[in-house]
């Protein structure tokens, strides 16, 4: 023991030998605190934890610096599941004695295991929630919550007691008794536990007596008289027994079953139904996916077939074109037929150039290269026989139209004249004039240029050049 004034160690004297302070009363207070600590320790040893806690709290009210008492109080709190209170005491203890303090080990024990600490924390939160449910009247929810709490922290005495109280309220005496017995295993001297247990045992004893009709020491006159008071023959104590308890229990059982069904339905709704819906959705999603894949495959097939149709159509068009080349107006067959007609007309009457020219006019020059060598040979032969004469006829006709200022007819005939006889420069020159006079300057210039190119150093070329210059100036 040290002096409160100077901190010196005190002797058996009632004053401090160092500073002279009066320490008689102080020593008595500290001694009483030590006595209370010893009592608390004794109670804790026989697991009277609530008694020990009360005694140790009194000890600390006398002497807050009693570190052993504080550490023991922390241990007691820890044992009844009040971890936060235990931690409080140990932290204060460590502050009072920073070194060589076992509280250090206790704190480390909790802090080094965060998972366990979190579990304790969850248990406390759930307990508070359960208490809140009780205040709100949601007792069934409170029972469920308290069961969770006790699964997290089986030593939580307050939770056991609250659950037992709820069972008592619901007249589930056996369940209440079981919870209270668990409480007693942790804390034998808890007055709340003992009171609840006493009540529960009384009711259960009366139940047994009711069942055996007269067995034991309880007077069941009350049952016959309809009174709710049952008197013990041995002790004379009176107990208030619920007269319609059986009916109440039946009703409560039905209510419990109904609540159970409701909870079951709720659980099914909350847990099973969403799972089913999810599974069904997954099934539908799978079906949609499969249908989508099939649709994609069909679409690809349709695209492929459309492509085939396009290809086939283009082939058909190509074949039609080829067929036209043979059978159309400018086709090979037609050209061959016209050439044969020209040959036939020439053989019948070589002087009738007009009839021959009618047939030859129908042959397109473009088909000459495609119609084959024999066709070309015959055509050239016919042209050599009649070309110059036909050209001369067309020239005469064209010049007549030109002089009559019928330039369209003149252009047509002069064009044919030059095509039958390429040496006829006059036909080409006058064709240029016809174009010029008809106002078609572009073709006129082209035609004059052709004259300059085909027949150079001629008067026609010189004039053509003059006209080209004039037209370019315009």
């Amino acid at each position: 023991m040290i002096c409160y004034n100077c901190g010196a160690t005190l002797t058996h004297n009632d004053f401090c030998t160092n500073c002279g302070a009066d320490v008689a009363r102080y020593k008595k207070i500290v001694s009483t605190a030590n006595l209370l600590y010893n009592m608390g320790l004794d109670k804790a040893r026989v697991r009277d934890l609530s008694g020990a806690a009360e005694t140790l709290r009194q000890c600390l009210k006398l002497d807050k610096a009693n570190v052993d008492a504080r550490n023991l109080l922390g241990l007691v709190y820890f044992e009844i599941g009040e971890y936060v209170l235990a931690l409080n005491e140990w932290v204060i203890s460590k502050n009072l004695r920073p070194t060589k303090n076992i509280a250090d080990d206790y704190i480390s024990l909790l802090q080094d295991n965060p998972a366990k600490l979190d579990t304790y924390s969850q248990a406390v939160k759930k307990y508070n929630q359960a208490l809140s449910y009780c205040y709100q009247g949601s007792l069934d929810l409170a029972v469920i919550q308290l069961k969770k709490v006790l699964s997290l922290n089986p030593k939580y005495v307050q939770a056991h007691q609250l659950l037992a109280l709820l069972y008592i309220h619901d007249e589930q005496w056996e369940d209440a008794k079981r919870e209270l017995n668990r409480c007693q295993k942790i804390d034998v001297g808890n007055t709340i536990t003992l009171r609840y247990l006493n009540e529960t045992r009384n009711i259960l004893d009366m139940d047994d007596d009711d069942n055996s009709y007269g067995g034991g020491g309880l007077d069941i006159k009350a049952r016959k008289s309809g009174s709710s008071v049952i008197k013990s023959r041995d002790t004379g104590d009176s107990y208030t027994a619920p007269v319609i308890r059986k009916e109440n229990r039946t009703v409560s059982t039905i209510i419990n079953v109904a609540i159970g069904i409701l909870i079951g339905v709720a659980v099914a709704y909350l847990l099973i139904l969403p799972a089913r819906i999810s599974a069904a959705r997954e099934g539908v999603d799978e079906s949609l996916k499969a249908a989508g894949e099939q649709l994609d495959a069909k679409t690809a097939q349709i695209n492929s077939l459309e492509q085939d149709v396009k290809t086939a159509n283009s082939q058909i068009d190509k074949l039609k074109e080829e067929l036209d080349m043979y059978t159309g107006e400018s086709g090979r067959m037609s050209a061959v037929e016209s050439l044969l007609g020209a040959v036939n007309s020439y053989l019948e009457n070589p002087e009738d150039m007009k009839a021959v020219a009618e047939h030859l006019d129908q042959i397109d020059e473009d088909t000459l290269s495609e119609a084959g060598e024999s066709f070309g040979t015959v055509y050239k032969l016919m042209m050599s026989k009649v070309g110059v004469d036909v050209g001369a006829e067309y020239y005469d006709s064209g010049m007549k139209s030109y002089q009559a200022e019928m330039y369209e007819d003149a252009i047509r005939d002069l064009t044919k004249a030059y095509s039958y006889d390429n040496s006829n420069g006059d036909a080409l020159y006058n064709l240029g004039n016809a174009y010029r006079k008809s106002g078609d300057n572009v073709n006129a210039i082209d035609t004059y240029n052709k004259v300059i190119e085909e027949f150079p150093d001629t008067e026609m070329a010189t004039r053509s050049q003059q006209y080209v210059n004039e037209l370019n100036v315009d």
Partner: protein
Amino acid sequence: MINFEEELKKFHPSLEIEEAEDAIYNQDLTDIADLLVGLIKEDKDENREVKQ
């Protein structure tokens, strides 16, 4: 008979871990020894004043 409502009032919410720090800081640690020492000091002060 146990009165449920009355019994329920005896149950109080437990301290949560988050509240531990505040609980430690706000705990009144004054003990009887502190009160006694205070009384003795007041007594001494009064005696000095009387002597003066």
